[in-house]
C-alpha cells in the first residue's frame, strides 16, 4: 500500500509538472507596452525585458523579435532565401535584438496568425501586408504614432498622402509606407506579333494605333475589340470570326488576373460596396465592369471563364498569363518579378490602363509592415521596423517583393537596379508606365475596409464564382441578391 501511495504521489507530481509546462510557461495575451513611456533610445528600451523574457534565448541575451511573413508577398519559394539572407545580415549587425523570421504560406497565413494572437503568442512584426491583410485583423495593430514621436522617426521622405493612407480612424497610424504596387497591363508580345497587331500604348491617355494606322482612343471598347482578335480557337479563328468555336478556345485575349469583384469594378473606376451611411451599395460603374466581364466570359469569349480557368493550357508558375496563351492581363507591380515572369518562354512588356468613360483608374496596392498589439517588445520591434524601412535597407526588401519604393529618395534609380537584378537580359521594359500609373490610383482603394470583412469577401466571391461558371445566369437578379445579402451582413455587424 505504501508503494502504491508513493507511486500515486509521483504521478500526481508528474501531472502537475505537465500541466504547469502546458499552461504556465506561455504568458497570457501580453498587452502592448505603453508606447507613451518616457523617451529613451531603442536599445535602452529593450534592455529591461532581457532578464526574464519568455522568448529569450538561453544561448543569447538578445531580445527575440518574431517577423511573420505570409499575409501578402513573401511566401513564394523564390522570395524565401533572400528574406532569410536579410535576417542573417540584420542579426550579424546586432548585439541586442535577434530577428526570427516565420514564413507561412499565404493560404494558411491568416489562420496561423489569428491562432498565434489568440494563444498569446503574437509575433511582433508582420508584413509585408496590404490593406486586405491589415483589415482582416482590425483592432489587432499597434498605433505607431507614439513610437514615431518617441524616436523622432523622420517621415519627410514620404508623400504625405501615402502616410495618411495608413492612418485609420480610432486606431491610429498603423503603418509607415514601404512599397507601392501600381497596376497596368502586361502583354505577350509574341501573341501580338503572331496576330500582326500593334502593341497597346505605353503612355496613359495615348491612342492605340491599329494595324492599318488608324488611331483609336485607348478605352474599354478598344481593349475589347483587341482582346477578341487575340482570342483564338483550335481552328485558328479569332473571336471576331463567324466561324469561331467558343468550345475549343486555345488562346485568350484578356484577363483581370488575380483580383476580385472589387478589383474588377475598380477597372472602370473607384468605388465601394459600403455607402456613407454604412449600407450596401453596388456602384453603377462596378456593375458595368462586372457585366462587361460576364459578357467577356460567356458572350464575347475573350476572357477565360470558370471552366476554362482550370484548363491545362492556361496553367503556369505565374498563373494564366505565364502559360503563354493569354495575350493581356491587368495586374500589379508585384507580378513583374522573376517567380512569375523570369522563366517564361515568350517576350512581354508593360502598357497603360485604358480609360472608361474618359477616366483612367489604375488600382493601387500598398504594402507595409505593422506591429501587433500583442508584441511584448514594441520598442525593439520598432527598431527592427525602422531598419527595414530605412533608406539603406528598404531597397533590399523591395527587390525581393518587387515593390516600387514609397521613399521618394529611392524612386529615381529603383527600376534601373530592379531591372538589373531581376531581369538582367531584358532591356526594353516600359517602366515609365509604372511611374505614371501612380497618378491614376484608386480612391477609395478597392481593398478598403468593409463591415465583417471576411464574411463580406466570402459572399461576393461566391457571387463571382457563380457568374464565372454559369452561362445563363440572371445577371441583374444576382447583383440584386448580392446587394441584399451584403446589407444583411452589414446590419448584423452594426
Amino acid at each position, binding site marked *: 500500500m505504501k508503494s502504491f501511495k508513493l*507511486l500515486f504521489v509521483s504521478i500526481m507530481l508528474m501531472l502537475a509538472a*505537465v500541466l504547469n509546462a502546458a499552461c504556465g510557461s506561455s504568458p497570457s495575451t501580453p498587452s502592448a507596452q505603453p508606447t507613451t513611456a518616457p523617451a529613451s533610445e531603442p536599445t535602452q528600451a529593450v534592455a529591461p525585458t532581457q532578464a526574464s523574457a519568455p522568448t529569450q534565448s538561453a544561448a543569447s541575451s538578445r531580445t527575440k523579435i518574431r517577423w511573420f511573413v505570409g499575409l501578402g508577398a513573401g511566401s513564394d519559394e523564390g522570395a524565401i532565401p533572400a528574406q532569410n539572407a536579410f535576417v542573417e545580415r540584420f542579426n550579424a549587425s546586432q548585439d541586442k535584438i535577434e530577428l526570427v523570421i516565420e514564413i507561412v504560406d499565404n493560404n494558411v497565413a491568416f489562420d496561423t496568425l489569428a491562432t498565434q*494572437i489568440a494563444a498569446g503568442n503574437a509575433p511582433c512584426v508582420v508584413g509585408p501586408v496590404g490593406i486586405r491583410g491589415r483589415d482582416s485583423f482590425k483592432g489587432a495593430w499597434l498605433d505607431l504614432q507614439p513610437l514615431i514621436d518617441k524616436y523622432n522617426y523622420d517621415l519627410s521622405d514620404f508623400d504625405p498622402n501615402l502616410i495618411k493612407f495608413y492612418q485609420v480612424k480610432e486606431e491610429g497610424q498603423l503603418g509607415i509606407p514601404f512599397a507601392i504596387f501600381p497596376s497596368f497591363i502586361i502583354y505577350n508580345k509574341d501573341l501580338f506579333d503572331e496576330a500582326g497587331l500593334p502593341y497597346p500604348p505605353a503612355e496613359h491617355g495615348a491612342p492605340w494605333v491599329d494595324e492599318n494606322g488608324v488611331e483609336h482612343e485607348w478605352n474599354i471598347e478598344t481593349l475589347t475589340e483587341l482582346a477578341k482578335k487575340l482570342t483564338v480557337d483550335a481552328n485558328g479563328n479569332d473571336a471576331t470570326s463567324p466561324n469561331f468555336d467558343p468550345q475549343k478556345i486555345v488562346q485568350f485575349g484578356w484577363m483581370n488576373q488575380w483580383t476580385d469583384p472589387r478589383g474588377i469594378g475598380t477597372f472602370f473606376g473607384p468605388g465601394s460596396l459600403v455607402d456613407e451611411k454604412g449600407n450596401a451599395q453596388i456602384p453603377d460603374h462596378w456593375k458595368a465592369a462586372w457585366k462587361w466581364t460576364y459578357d467577356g466570359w460567356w458572350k464575347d469569349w475573350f476572357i477565360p*471563364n470558370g471552366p*476554362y480557368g482550370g484548363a*491545362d493550357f492556361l496553367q503556369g508558375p505565374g498563373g494564366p498569363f505565364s502559360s503563354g496563351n493569354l495575350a493581356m492581363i491587368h495586374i500589379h507591380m508585384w507580378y513583374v518579378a522573376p517567380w512569375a515572369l523570369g522563366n517564361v518562354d515568350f517576350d512581354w512588356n508593360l502598357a497603360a490602363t485604358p480609360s472608361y468613360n474618359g477616366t483612367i483608374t489604375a488600382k493601387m496596392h500598398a504594402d507595409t509592415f505593422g506591429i501587433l498589439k500583442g508584441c511584448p517588445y514594441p520598442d525593439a520591434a520598432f527598431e527592427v521596423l525602422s531598419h527595414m524601412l530605412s533608406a539603406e535597407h528598404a531597397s533590399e526588401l523591395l527587390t525581393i517583393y518587387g515593390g516600387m519604393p514609397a521613399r521618394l529618395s529611392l524612386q529615381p534609380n529603383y527600376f534601373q537596379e530592379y531591372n538589373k537584378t531581376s531581369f538582367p537580359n531584358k532591356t526594353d521594359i516600359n517602366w515609365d508606365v509604372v511611374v505614371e500609373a501612380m497618378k491614376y490610383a484608386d480612391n477609395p482603394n478597392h481593398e478598403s475596409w468593409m463591415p465583417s470583412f471576411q464574411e463580406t469577401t466570402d459572399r461576393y466571391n*461566391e457571387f463571382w464564382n*457563380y457568374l464565372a461558371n454559369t452561362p445563363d445566369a440572371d445577371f441583374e437578379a444576382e447583383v440584386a441578391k448580392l446587394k441584399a445579402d451584403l446589407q444583411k451582413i452589414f446590419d448584423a455587424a452594426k
Partner: protein
Amino acid sequence: MAIVPDLSGALRSSIGKAKRRKLSQLEKKEMRWGLMFISPWIIGFLAFYLLPMIASFGFSLYDFNPAIPDQARFIGFANWQRALFQDAEVWRSLRRTIHFAAISLPISLLFALFLAILLNSENVLGRSIYRTLFYMPTMIPLVATVLIWNGVLNEQTGWINVIIERLTGIRATGTQGLRWLADPNLVYYAYTLFGLWGVGNAMIIFLAGLQGIPKELYEAAEIDGANWLQRLIFITIPLLTPVIFYQLVLGVIGSLQYFLAPFVLNNGTGFPEGMTRFFMVYFYKQSFTFFSMGYGATLAWLMLIIAMIITIVLFGTARYWVFYTTEER
C-alpha cells in the same frame, strides 16, 4: 463465434456483479493498480480532449475573435440562439451534408462489400495482388488524392471526359460538357468517386468479417441446394451485419465530418452554388475565416449533439437487423 464481440452484454454483467457485492482488499488493490496503469491515457484524455471540450463549450458563450482576444465578451446563449433559430445556413449546410451522405455512403459501403466478396472468392486468381492493389490508394494522402482527381475530372482536359468524348462522340469536354466538379447535379458523385479510391480500409474490414464466417454454413447450404445468391443473402449478409453496422456508424460520423475535399478544391467557398458548403466547411469558415470562434464552437457542439443523436438512433435500430452469433434471441 462472434465476429464483433457484443461488449454491451459483458459490461452490463460486470456492473451487475459489482453492485451485488463489495470488493475485497485484493480486488481494490488490483483496481488501484489498474487505474494507475491506465492513468497516462486518462491524463491525456483529460488534458487533450475533455478540458478542450469544456473550454470550447465556454467559448460558445462568448463573442470571441482570436485576432482581438482582448475584446472577447460574454454573450450567454446568443450563439446558440443564432445557430438554432436565426442562421438558416446552419440547417442548409446540414441538409447538404445529409444529402451527400445519402449518396456517398451507400455507394462506398456497397462498393467495399462488393470488392471484399470478390476478393474473398477462391475463384479469383492472384487475390493477394488485387487486395494489395485495391488497398494501395488508401496510403496516398487524401489531399494528394483530391488534387489528382481534380485533374482527372477536369472538364476541359481531364482524361475521363476526353475518353467519354472519344468513345461515344458525345461532347463531354468544354463549357457544355460534363462539369463534374462545377455542376451541382454531378458534384456529389464526383466527390464520392474520390472516396471510392480510398475504399481499401473498408474492404479489408469486410474481408476480415467474411473470413470469419464458418465454412460449414456454406457447405451445409450447398448440400441443401442453395445457389450463390441465396448463400449471399441468407448466410453472408446476416453474419456480416455487425461489420456492416460498424462500417455504417463510422461512415455516418465520417460523412458528418466531411471537409477535406471541398476545402482543398474550393477553399470552402461552397462552389458550385453552395452545394459543397457542408456543415464542417461552414464551421471552418465561421471559426477560421470569419474568426467568429465563439460561434464556431457552438457549431462544433451542435455537430457533436447531432452525431450523438444519429449514433444513438443507429444503435437503437441495431437490435432489429444486426445479428451477433453469440446473442440469444
